[in-house]
């Protein structure tokens, strides 16, 4: 009964209006490289204080879900992830665009993002408390092993040459050490610039590497005759057939489970979840060779993964009062502003409000589905713009986005240098994925490994006594040696 009331509440004209405002502004924020979901929510939070709690949250939840979804649009169309969570969508999404299937890719992004959001909302409804309790089991040792597991994906995201992939991957790890070290606060490669004390900022690095790198590469390889970025937009195939949908289901089910868990674990968000899901799906796929070359499965997995993180992150936030990712950290602040403390007692004292939040989450995804499918036709028109114009516009967006994230010129320089580096990688045919993976997971691995060791006074035994560590280590080792075993088995069969 109270569920019906919660859903009816969302459809109150005022609440629904703010939800739609949230979705539309989120779509804009997410599509522009550099304007992340975190930033969108942070900027709109002070505005939401003027509103009633249910209106304010309708707007914030709309922005959150919509920005994560629309980050995939720029990843697919211009090879620049709109938000860090959509990095993995560039791997296959942009390849599909180059082949002329941008309409199909965009619809996959919308449908699977919404699916991810809905499935993870169901997890929030049915498993909130057990899931949150499981997330609490992650201590420093477990985080370190999770990061190590993520790093084994380096091989998966390396494309054709694992050696090249590992080379840039370890370079990424090296770059992740810039800044104060997280245990002794020792300054590393900071060039006496306070802006580098917190390390190289990830978002500008990402925009530079993918966005600027791609533009430079196109300028380098383009011929005068070509006018638009891709040869031709083939509109014929726009949707997946039911049969294809069924074929992609197992990989997506796995990606959803991985992402909900990663989302629930504090400090690990959509970027890590989507790369791990993509890498794991590739390992288990019957056609791993298609991954990175425009695989429908690969794209769908990366799209479902980053939105499935939301339900997981909301779970930890609502049931424990612990932020599951950067956005939920801000949402906790808003809840406190309204005089509500998230945690188990919120489910008792403010049950109608919790149900309203979950209902908003579900309705927001439905709004995204409708909004996405109707506007998906507009986006590919971007590709018909003259190439040179597009380059300038994308470069401008990248610069503005890099500056906006911290209001810092150092970030623009970082982005420009990363762009040149990304270009060199493209020309020399090195993959960019492993570099991003190294940067993303380097700090998580280092700080938690050292934290765990300082807790145990230097004993490594914790890594072999914690059940989560044992399971993750076993999967890591197996996934590294599995290809070799498979090869040998095949030989024997022949």
């Amino acid at each position, binding site marked *: 009964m109270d569920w019906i009331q919660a859903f009816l509440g969302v459809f109150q004209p005022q609440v629904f209006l703010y939800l739609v405002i949230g979705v539309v502004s989120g779509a804009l924020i997410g599509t522009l490289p550099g304007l992340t979901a975190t930033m969108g929510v942070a900027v709109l939070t002070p505005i939401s204080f003027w509103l009633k709690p249910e209106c304010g949250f309708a707007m914030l939840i709309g922005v959150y879900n919509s920005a994560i979804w629309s980050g995939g649009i720029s990843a697919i169309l211009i090879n620049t992830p709109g938000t860090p969570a959509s990095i993995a969508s560039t791997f296959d999404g942009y390849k599909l665009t180059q082949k002329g299937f941008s309409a199909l890719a965009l619809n996959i992004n919308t449908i699977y993002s919404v699916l991810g959001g809905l499935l993870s909302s169901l997890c929030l409804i049915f498993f909130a408390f057990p899931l949150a309790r499981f997330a609490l089991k992650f201590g420093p040792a477990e985080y370190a092993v999770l990061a190590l597991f993520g790093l084994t994906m380096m091989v998966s995201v390396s494309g054709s040459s694992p050696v090249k992939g590992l080379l840039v991957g370890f370079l990424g790890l090296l770059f992740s050490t810039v800044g104060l070290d997280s245990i002794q606060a020792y300054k590393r490669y900071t060039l006496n610039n306070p802006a580098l004390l917190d390390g190289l900022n990830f978002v500008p690095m990402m925009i530079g590497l993918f966005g600027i790198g791609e533009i430079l590469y196109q300028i380098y390889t383009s011929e005068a005759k070509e006018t638009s970025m891709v040869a031709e937009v083939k509109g014929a195939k726009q949707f997946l057939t039911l049969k294809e949908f069924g074929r992609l289901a197992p990989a997506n089910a796995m990606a959803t489970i991985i992402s909900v868990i990663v989302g629930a674990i504090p*400090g690990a968000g959509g970027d890590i979840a989507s790369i791990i899901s993509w890498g794991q799906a590739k390992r288990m796929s019957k056609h791993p060779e298609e991954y990175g070359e425009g695989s429908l499965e690969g794209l769908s997995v990366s799209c479902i993964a980053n939105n499935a993180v939301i339900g997981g992150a909301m779970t930890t936030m609502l049931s424990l009062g612990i932020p599951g990712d950067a956005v939920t950290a801000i949402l906790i602040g808003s809840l*406190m502003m309204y005089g509500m403390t998230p945690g188990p007692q919120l489910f008792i004292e403010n049950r109608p409000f919790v149900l309203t939040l979950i209902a908003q989450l579900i309705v927001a995804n439905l709004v995204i589905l409708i909004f996405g499918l109707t506007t998906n036709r507009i986006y590919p028109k971007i590709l018909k713009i003259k190439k040179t114009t597009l380059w300038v516009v994308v470069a401008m967006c990248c610069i503005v986005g890099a500056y906006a994230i911290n209001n810092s010129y150092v970030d623009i320089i970082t982005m420009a240098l990363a762009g040149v580096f990304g270009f060199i990688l493209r020309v020399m045919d090195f993959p960019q994925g492993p570099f991003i993976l190294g940067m993303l997971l380097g700090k998580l691995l280092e700080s938690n490994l050292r*934290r765990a060791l300082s807790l145990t006074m230097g004993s490594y035994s914790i890594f072999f006594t914690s059940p989560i560590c044992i399971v993750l280590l076993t999967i890591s080792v197996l996934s590294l040696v599995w290809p070799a075993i498979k090869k040998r088995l095949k030989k024997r069969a022949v």
Partner: protein
Amino acid sequence: MRRMFVLTLLVVLVAGSAFAQAKFPVRQINIVVGASAGGTSDTVTRFLAKDVEAQLGVPVVVTDKPGGSCSVAFEYMASQRPDGYHLMYMPVESAMVKALGFTQLEPKSVRFFAHAMFLPATVTVNAKSPWKTFGDLIAYAKANPGKVTVGNSGTGSIWHFAAVGIEQACGVSFNHVPFDGGAAAATAVMGGHVDVATVAPGEVLAGVKSGDLRVLAIVDTKRSPLYPDVPCFKELGYDVKILAWGAFAAPAGTPDNVVAVLEAAFAKAIQSQGFKDLCMKYGLTPGYMGAKDAQAFAESQAKWYQEEIPKFNLK
């Protein structure tokens, strides 16, 4: 003719600047925050900015420039023109960053015009732990030196020093474990990965309400409104003065009349009922101080940290 022109120009310029000095503010005021959006510093500043905006009748815009424990924002603000239009939220870290070697700036380098609030550390343990009182914890720590693991919000952060202050006051030694922020340390106590967290009252509130965490003491001279049943350090007979705080400052050389306008506006905003309510929700202690006192307080803090921090042998 030319002389006349130059003279007129001079007169206009002098008169103009005198006029400009007489009337403040006439355009947008910017306040920079050295932390990310959504945090305590950002929330407090945005709240007060709204109030000051209404009082002064010009837009007051808050910008976040996170990085290096506020030193990025500090260097930015100190390099701006001292005209009263470029202000900064000054956290306790602004008194620490010079000693930590992040920047050459210290409270002496700028003009404080208002102090807003204080934020004490809590001593928080897992609800399942055997320590029911602060005395239990200290007794165990004395018997087992270096055994108790204490999570803080990062090496060289204010909550790290709070734990060090407790060690010194109580004559015990802890195993300090830095986390990425206070919330992460509180989470680690909830999960049973570390024994104690010395973080802000608001950061452990959810855990306390859910029955996962227990606050043993407040490191302050008075109790926290969020935990009225928990004794403060003064009651327990200890004297630890390591608190987080927040104030506001303008670049050095900002004229007195401008500072007076800002001081009056912020005084009214900080002492308003609305700000008191906000503090209550976040577990902050409102504590207004005027320009003179705020400056003296920040400088005395800086002096203390410059003496203490080198003893920790941080690199």
